[in-house]
């Protein structure tokens, strides 16, 4: 694994094949061996380009998560019209009794 501090030495790949496999699993994506090789090279190139910010001194700069400062936006807690439940459930791959049906979450199907 590369150095988690982010100061990966120049010349080393910013992301390894094992890390891409790990990230794919976290993101619930399955990659073939060929895809793993291809994506590792492509992601490494993007992360390598991102190193151009390493020279910037941002130690005292606050992060921006959103372009404009937001405060909590609330509304009165009153019942009002919403989307139609049947219309929503009709879009589910499988629905039953007004609920989304999925295969077993733990273990194999009986």
């Amino acid at each position, binding site marked *: 694994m590369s150095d*988690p*501090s*982010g*100061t990966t030495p120049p010349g080393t790949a910013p*992301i390894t094949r094992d*890390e*891409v496999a790990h*990230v*794919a699993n*976290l*993101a*619930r*994506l*399955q*990659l073939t061996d060929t895809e793993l090789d291809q*994506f590792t090279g*492509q*992601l490494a*190139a*993007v*992360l390598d*380009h*991102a*190193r*151009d*910010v390493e020279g*910037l001194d*941002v130690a005292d*700069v*606050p*992060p*921006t*998560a*959103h*372009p*404009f400062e*937001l405060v909590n*936006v609330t*509304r009165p807690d009153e019942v009002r019209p919403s*989307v*139609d439940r049947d*219309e*929503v459930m*009709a*879009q*589910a*791959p*499988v629905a039953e009794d007004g609920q*989304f049906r*999925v*295969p*077993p*979450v*733990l*273990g*194999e*199907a009986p």
Partner: protein
Amino acid sequence: MTATTTTASAIAAAVRSGSRSAREVLEEHLAAIEAREPELHAFNLVTGDAARASADRVDAAVAAGEDPGPLAGVPVALKDNLCTRGVATTCSSRILEGWLPPYDATVVQRLAGAGAVIVGKTNLDEFAMGSSTENSAFGPSRNPHDTSRVPGGSSGGSAVAVAAGFAPLALGSDTGGSIRQPAALCGVVGVKPTYGAVSRYGLIAFASSLDQIGPFANTVEDAALLLEVIAGHDPMDSTSIPRPAPDLRAGLHRGVEGLRVGVVRELTGDGIAPDVAARVTAAADALSAAGAKVTEASVPAAIYGLSAYYLIAPAEASSNLARYDGVRYGMRVDAPNTPDMNLATRTAGFGDEVKRRIMLGTYALSAGYYDAYYGKAQKVRTLIIRDFAAAYADVDVLLSPTSPTTAFAFGAKSDPLTMYLNDVCTIPSNLSGDPAVSVPYGVGDDGLPVGVQIMAPALGEDTMLRVAAALEATR
């Protein structure tokens, strides 16, 4: 002049006065679509029958002495990441094939309320991730000026629809340039409004701190007209700015006498094709001749925008696209248990570029790397905002190219990083949240359109479009 080269403003005036029927206008546009759509592939879906029904309602309203609204009978094309109730909305992704949204986006409701006639859903790079429409699961759109070239992206289909005369107006979304860049490559006007100026309720999310809906049009005045209709506060979007829609057309043609225009040094040098740079210089000279005070301006951190953007946008996308899990809507690939079903569905449903960005974002947010990548990118975003603010202390608007080159050939930028470099001029305005517009201004050495970008401080759409209109008038 045929209907398909008439402006939206002229169509609406004619329909409201009863001198033309909305149905007649629509049929002419549907005929234009039928003639050239097979070659250009602007649309994922043309909604001809529904459009005829809306046009007939507009005509009935006029006949009854009612005013159908400022877009009476104007055909409008919608990017296929805007929800339309009961009408397929795919994001050009297999994972949403067959999905029928249970509600209309706010912009769709406002278009209907203004008398517009929606003609169809336009093609895009899958989930708006791309700059060419080559990432669409349904095949790319083609540039009407040269069908061997890309139309730009991600809102390529909307740009093509307007450029080819399929509709005088279209809506797109712009996260890193996805309205402005295809507008530039197809020779039409494209506006990214201030973040929060247009409600995003019903826009399928890509990167929530950057996404904004905006208009495509053939003229600056038409773009202003459409923006007036879709802008303004919406309680259904918590990021919507609480102020009414601005009047953008009243002062549109007041000229640029006395306005200060800054040409951004960092976005006009290295990496910009000489023929594109020459058009920006010509635009600066034309504005100067029209009475503006043109100077050089500096936004030093803008050159770091690309690096920050390609960490922030994928990070937000990795979170937003976690919802496509085969449970509640869209595609499901069956498997014996739910984790395998999630995996099989996402693996089959997403294309390569979407997978790349999800993985990049997941990595940038993962334990041990968050501070080095996502955290640092957020700090760079602050620097860009500060540099824009400093530049706007001295000038009213900023000028740059929209895209570093004219339309490129299909397959020319198959390497992802090479494709990302296209967005260098457009990304800074998304990071700052400020508005920007691309105005067609002549052609490059290859005879293809060049777009000039005008940027303004937040909520400065009126001044920005005034400069755009003045520039348009000097063509």
